[in-house]
C-alpha cells in the first residue's frame, strides 16, 4: 500500500482513491482534488488558492479534467474512483492562456517590480514556460494608493484572487478589503469612505499583509532589501515549493489521520 508523504495509513481502513493521470491517489473525506494531489506529492499550478483559507476557485489556473469535464481542482471535492487528468494538451494550453490573461489584464512590469522573484504570478508563468503575453494588453488605468504611512497599494498588479479579502475577514476579523465593480471593471476597494487605505484599521501585522501573491500590498521602506537572485523563487521553482508547503490535512474534517 502506498503511503504518500510518509503519511501513516490506518491498515484497517484502506483510504479511498481516485486516478490522477492514471496513478492511484488516496484521499480523505472532505479533501478537495487539489489537497489530495498536493498531499500525494504532485503539483498543480494555482494562484488564488491558499492552504489557510476557504478555496473559491476564481483564477481557474488549477483546472483539471474530472471524468472528462474541466473543473477547478481547488473546489472540486475528491470522490472515490474519479478519473483526474492534469496534463492534456488542452489543459496545458488553457492554463497558459489563463496566466497570460492575468498579465494583460493588469499592468505588470516585472523588471521594476519590488515583488519580482517573490511573485507567485511570475513564478507560475515561468513554471508554465510562458515567454510572452500572447494577447493584446488592456493597459487599465489603476492609480496607486500611497496614503498609508507604512503600506503601499499598487493596484496595477492585482489579479483579483481575493486572498487579502479573505484574510482580512477570516483571519484578522477586519474586512479591510472588498471587491467592487463587475466584469473587467471589477477592482479591489478598501473599507473607508474616503477610499484611502490610511483611513482603514489595517495594521502591518495583519495576515492580509502577507497573503498577496503579487505585488499589490507592500510594506514601505523595505523595498529591495533582499536582492534579486536571492528571492523566494530565484533558487527553486514554484512546483518544488508548493509541495514543501502542501497541506497534509483535509479541509473539512481534521481528525482521523495524523
Amino acid at each position: 500500500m502506498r503511503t504518500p508523504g510518509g503519511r501513516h495509513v490506518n491498515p484497517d481502513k484502506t483510504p479511498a482513491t481516485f486516478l490522477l493521470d492514471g496513478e492511484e491517489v488516496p484521499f480523505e473525506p472532505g479533501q478537495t482534488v487539489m489537497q489530495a494531489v498536493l498531499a500525494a506529492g504532485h503539483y498543480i499550478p494555482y494562484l488564488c488558492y491558499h492552504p489557510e483559507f476557504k478555496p473559491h476557485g476564481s483564477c481557474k489556473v488549477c483546472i483539471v479534467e474530472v471524468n472528462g469535464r474541466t473543473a477547478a481542482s481547488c473546489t472540486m471535492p475528491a470522490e472515490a474512483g474519479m478519473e483526474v487528468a492534469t496534463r492534456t494538451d488542452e489543459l496545458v494550453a488553457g492554463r497558459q492562456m489563463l496566466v497570460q490573461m492575468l498579465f494583460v489584464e493588469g499592468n505588470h512590469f516585472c523588471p521594476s517590480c519590488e515583488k519580482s522573484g517573490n511573485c507567485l504570478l511570475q513564478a507560475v508563468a515561468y513554471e508554465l514556460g510562458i515567454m510572452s503575453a500572447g494577447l493584446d494588453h488592456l493597459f487599465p488605468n489603476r492609480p496607486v494608493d500611497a496614503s498609508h504611512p507604512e503600506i503601499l497599494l499598487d493596484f496595477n498588479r492585482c489579479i483579483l484572487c481575493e486572498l487579502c479579502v479573505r484574510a482580512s475577514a477570516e483571519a484578522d476579523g477586519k474586512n479591510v478589503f472588498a471587491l467592487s465593480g463587475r466584469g473587467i471593471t471589477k477592482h479591489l476597494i478598501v473599507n473607508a469612505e474616503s477610499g484611502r487605505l490610511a483611513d482603514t484599521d489595517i495594521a502591518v501585522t495583519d495576515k492580509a499583509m502577507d497573503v498577496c501573491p503579487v505585488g499589490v500590498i507592500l510594506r514601505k521602506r523595505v523595498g529591495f532589501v533582499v536582492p534579486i537572485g536571492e528571492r523566494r523563487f530565484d533558487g527553486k521553482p514554484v512546483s518544488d515549493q508548493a509541495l514543501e508547503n502542501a497541506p497534509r490535512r483535509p479541509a473539512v474534517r481534521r481528525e482521523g489521520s495524523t
Partner: protein
Amino acid sequence: MTEKRAELDSIAQRYGCEPTALLQILREAQEIEGWLPPGTLSYLARLLGLPRARVEGVAGFYSFLHLERAGRYRVLFSDNITDRMAGNLELLERFCNSLWLEQGKVSEDDLVRVDTTSCTGMCDQGPAILVNGWAIPRMSPDRVDEIVELIRSRTEVETWPAELFLVEDNIRRRDILLGSSLEPGEAIRAAITPALRDGRIAISDPGPKATLEAIKRSNLRGRGGAGFSTGLKWEACRHAPGEMRYVVCNADEGEPGTFKDRVLLTRYADLVFEGMTVCAFVIGARKGFLYLRGEYQHLLAPLGEVLSRRRAEGLLGTGICGHAGFEFDIEIHLGAGAYVCGEESALIESLEGKRGVPRSRPPYPVTHGFLQRPTTVNNVETFCAAALIALRGGEWYRNIGTVKSAGTKILSISGDCAHPGIYEYPFGVEVGQILEDCGADRTQAVQVSGPSGTCIDTTEFERRIAFEDLPTAGAFMVFDESRDIFEVARNFTHFFAHESCGFCTPCRVGTTLLRNIMDKIHRGKGSQHELNQIFQLSQLLQSASHCGLGTTACNPLLDSIKRFRPAYERRLESLEFEPAFDLNGALERARAMAGRYDVCGHPGADT
C-alpha cells in the same frame, strides 16, 4: 443631512435593517438623490451592521446603482441588436445633440445623463429607453424631441404623459397557456383536493404527493433554457433536510431578445402566483420570492396589487383556500441591471443582498439555496405551466408537444418580421412555420434563444423548437438578407463583456478580449491571427468558465464564423498578422500639429 438620514432610517427600517435586503434598500436610497454618495453608503452600512466595503461592493456590482453623480434624469437606450436595427444609435445621437451631451457623461448642471444599457425586453416595440428606470418603448425622432423638452422644462418623470410609458403585449398566437382562463385559486384548490383534477389520480392520495406525481408525469421541463425536469427538482427540494424552504420565481429575464415573462407578468400574473403557490404546497415552503428584473420596474406596482388582492381572497397568507396549515406568501425583489442574476445561484446571492456572483456547485439550490436552505427556483413560464398541470393533470400535458419536450413554448419574436410579439407553440414546431406565421421575408438567419443560444441559417429552417433539437428560453430574433451577421455577433460580444460578473479569469478577461478582437476586425484591422485567437479563447471559455455566461459567451462568434464566414473574411485586412497598435494612426495628431505631410512623416505607410 438630518432629513436625508431620517429618510434612510425609514427605508432601512421598512426592511427591518436586514442585510439580505441590502439591494432593495440601496435601490430605494438612490431615489433620494439619483445616486449613492459615499456618506449614504457609510450610513447604511452602520444601520445594517455591515462592513462599509461590502455595501460599496454590492452597489458597485449593479448597473442601475450609481456611485457617482448620474443626473436628475438618467436616460438609458436599450442596445440589443434589434434596437440597433431599429436605429437606436441615431436616436441617441439626436438626443445627445439636442441637449449638448456626451454619451456617458452627466451634463454640467447635473441635469441629465444618457448612455446605453443591455436589452430592456422591448424588442417587439423598440427602440426602447429607460428614464430613471421607467420603460418607454417605440422611440422615434418625435419622441426624442418630446422627451428632450420634458427634461429641459424639468418636468418630473411621474407627470410625463402616460402614453409614453404604454407597453404593448402583442400576443399573436395562443395555445394552452395563453389561451387559458383560470379562476384565481382554481389550480390551488385542485392541488389541495386532487379529486378535482383528472380522474387518473386516486382520491385517497394526499394533496402534495399527488400534485408532485402530476408534475412528474407531465414531463414538464424548466423553461429558463436548461430544461431540467421540474418534477425532479420539486421532489429533491421537498425531500431535502431543513425546516424552512423557499420558492423563487426567476423573472430576471435578461437574455437579449426575450420578453415573454414581461407579458406573462402583465397579463397572467395570477397564473404565475398560482404556480408558485402550488409549488409551495408541494415542497412545503412558507415563503416565496419573485425576482423581477430592474428593467421591469413598471410592473412592480401592478404585481403588488395582484398580491394584495390574492391575500384578501385567501389565496396567500395563512389557511390558503381554507386548508388549515397551508401558509405561504410572496415577496417581490427588484433587480438592478445584472444579466448574470438570471443564473439561479447568482439570483439567490442577489436575493441575499450580495453581489450577483454564481456559486460553486454542488451543492445545488434545491438543498442549499436561499440562506443555505432548500430552494426551488423556476422560470415564470414554468410556474404558469405547473399551475395548468395542477388543474388538468400530467397526462393531459405530456400528450402535447413531443415525446422529449412536453407542452408548449412561448416565443418572443422580434427583428425582421411583420408581426413581432408573443407566440405560443406546442414543442416540435418548425422554424420555417414560425417564420411564416410572423411574416418574416427574405430571412437570412435566426438567433434562437438569444446570444447564448444558436444562430441558424436558411439550410436549417426545418429544425424544430424542442429540447432535443433547438432548445430555447424564448428569444427568436429574425435577420433578413440586408443584415450584417458580423455586426450581430459583435453586438452580442459587447453584451457578454458588459455582463460578465468578473468572478473567474476566463470569462472576466476573455469576454473583454473577444470584444476587443471583434472591434479590431470591425475597424478593418483584423487578420487570420484574430480568427485563430477567437477559436483559442472560445475553447478556454467553454471549458474553464465558472458558469453558463462564460461557457456560452462565444456561441454567437462560433456560430456566425461557421455559417457566415465571408462576413468576417471580407473585413480582414490580410490573412497575416496585423498589430493592434496602428503607428500611422497614432501619429496623425502629431503630423497635424507639425504640418508634416511628407513621405517621412508616414512610417510604414507603404508596407
